[in-house]
């Protein structure tokens, strides 16, 4: 059983009150967050007030909503009314949104218990959580290693049992990569399946909100509840997606699982072995493994960085020190004020991406970079569509390696970008993909694999993921931190 159902059974069975249970988490945050650095804001009052409401509801004998009373967290780029939302950037310090992101409205209406906001790479730009202005969140499996990025704080909190679940955002792997590094489950839904309203924009055509949890069932429950059409997001799709939780245990006999050969190139040996071992497990479960070629993948990484940076340079134009956040102290005139505010407020990686984005959109370079990358995006989408003519899902590594040691990720930008090679094609194509743990390396650090599906077919990838979890529970390992149920 997943943790969400287990906790709700504990609450309704009178084993513990929601207030007591929430206090356990708040206590654990006080001690464990010193080392994990997962939370950047703790919302104790909000959490206890919600828990109180849940207890009153239970006392009245009312049935609980699917996420009611469950302690959770949100990445710090998801807008929370009256609660600081900084994207872990100096430029948004002190910013308290005046409205809620739609996903938070949904969870709040269900009385999910918000414990706080979690750490991330500044504006979700990074692969180690270390570009955060608060310093990085650490890996609960070994705190000498990074949690991954950009949703590193959510992954660290969930793997460290100081939150039951969390919502992150994934623009090029930012949910799946930290989930992989921390040995837990992370789902990047189909583009348009979850409302982005209130998600502070990085690259709007690639951004997507999704759950990070410890079990596949929990991911399915959270996804089913947040994938709702929202008229406030004009890219939100009005599709009736049937609940994924109902089909988790469906037989996968005869399912065709594809492995793109390109996805295994350049992947470290221990990661490759784990993926191939998982493929063997799937054969034992009656699935068929189909190898195929996906040559278009070789352009995915530069295409991603061109498009993401172009969109970021436009989205981040709004930070001018006038309406919210940080403003420089001494300036001479408006242009000087804006330049100083931005130069002092943004970190190096954000500046690099704004500059690259501005470059590829500027006169004389637009066709060679932006337009060309857009066309290649079409090529990559087509390549995946063709692949899905022959397979039901695609199995791939999440990251070509395991978590890096603290401080080892940020030296060379291009080398760091290469860690995203397995995750970015999914955002480019707008597909759903779930990362689940599939082993450990010789240092005991988790290895993750992705199960990638057709658009709006979250049900199948979660079904395939769940079946693996049933036969390989040893890969879903607890850490020494936090609250144990």
């Amino acid at each position: 059983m997943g943790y969400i159902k287990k906790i709700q059974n504990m609450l309704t069975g009178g084993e513990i009150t929601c207030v007591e249970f929430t206090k356990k988490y708040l206590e654990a945050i006080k001690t464990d967050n010193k080392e994990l650095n997962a939370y950047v804001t703790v919302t104790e009052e909000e959490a206890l007030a919600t828990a109180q409401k849940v207890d009153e509801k239970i006392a009245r004998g009312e049935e609980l909503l699917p996420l009611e009373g469950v302690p959770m967290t949100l990445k710090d780029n998801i807008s929370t009314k009256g609660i600081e939302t900084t994207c872990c950037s100096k430029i948004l310090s002190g910013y308290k949104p005046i409205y809620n992101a739609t996903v938070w409205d949904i969870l709040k209406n269900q009385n999910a218990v918000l414990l706080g906001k979690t750490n991330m790479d500044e504006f979700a730009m990074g692969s180690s959580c270390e570009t955060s202005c608060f310093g990085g969140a650490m890996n609960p499996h070994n705190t000498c290693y990074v949690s991954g990025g950009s949703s590193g704080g959510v992954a660290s909190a969930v793997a460290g049992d100081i939150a039951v679940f969390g919502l992150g955002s994934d623009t090029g792997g930012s949910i799946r990569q930290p989930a992989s590094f921390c040995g837990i489950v992370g789902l990047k839904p189909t583009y348009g399946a979850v409302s982005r309203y209130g998600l502070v924009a990085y690259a709007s055509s690639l951004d997507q909100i999704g759950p990070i949890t410890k079990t596949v069932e929990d991911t399915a429950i959270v996804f089913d509840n947040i994938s709702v059409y929202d008229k406030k997001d004009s890219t939100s799709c009005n599709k009736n997606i049937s609940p994924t939780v109902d089909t988790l245990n469906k037989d996968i006999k005869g399912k065709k699982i594809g492995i793109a050969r390109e996805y295994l190139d350049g992947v470290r040996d221990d990661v490759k072995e784990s993926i191939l071992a998982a493929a063997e497990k799937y054969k034992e479960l009656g699935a068929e493994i189909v190898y195929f070629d996906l040559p278009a993948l070789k352009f995915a990484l530069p295409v991603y960085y061109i498009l993401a940076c172009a969109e970021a340079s436009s989205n981040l134009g709004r930070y001018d020190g006038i309406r919210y956040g940080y403003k420089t102290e001494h300036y001479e005139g408006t242009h000087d004020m804006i330049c100083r505010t931005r130069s002092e407020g943004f970190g190096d990686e954000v500046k690099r991406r704004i500059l690259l984005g501005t470059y590829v959109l500027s006169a004389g370079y637009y066709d060679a970079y932006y337009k060309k990358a857009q066309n290649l995006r079409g090529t990559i989408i087509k390549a995946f569509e063709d692949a899905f003519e022959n397979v039901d899902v695609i199995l791939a590594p999440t990251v070509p390696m395991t978590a890096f040691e603290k401080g080892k990720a940020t030296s060379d930008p291009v080398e760091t970008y290469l860690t995203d090679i397995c995750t970015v094609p999914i955002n480019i194509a707008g597909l759903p993909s779930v990362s689940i743990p599939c082993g450990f390396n010789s240092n005991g650090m988790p290895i993750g694999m992705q199960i990638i599906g057709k658009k709006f077919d979250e049900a199948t990838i979660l079904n395939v993921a769940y079946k693996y979890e049933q036969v390989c529970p040893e890969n879903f390992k607890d850490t020494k931190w936090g609250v144990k149920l």
Partner: protein
Amino acid sequence: MITREDVENIALLSKLFVPEEEMDSLTESMQEIVRFADTINNADTEGVEFDNINNLSNVLREDEVKPSYPSEEILKNAPEQAEEHFLVRKHA
């Protein structure tokens, strides 16, 4: 090849100041990133177009009057404000 002058120009367009002492290292790292972006140059995209991810078209709605967020709430986030306005000081 992206030059130091290019970097100065795009920094200006991006409204970012780059300190003189960081200019060389920034140019170098931009050159590396652009070299990496250049790998798409020889890709064949003949006849391929891309518009948007889910074949969406414009989403229209009725133009209904709805209450706006109260300006005092919005202004609470402003670093400087005066008389219900955002404040930007005049150049002395």
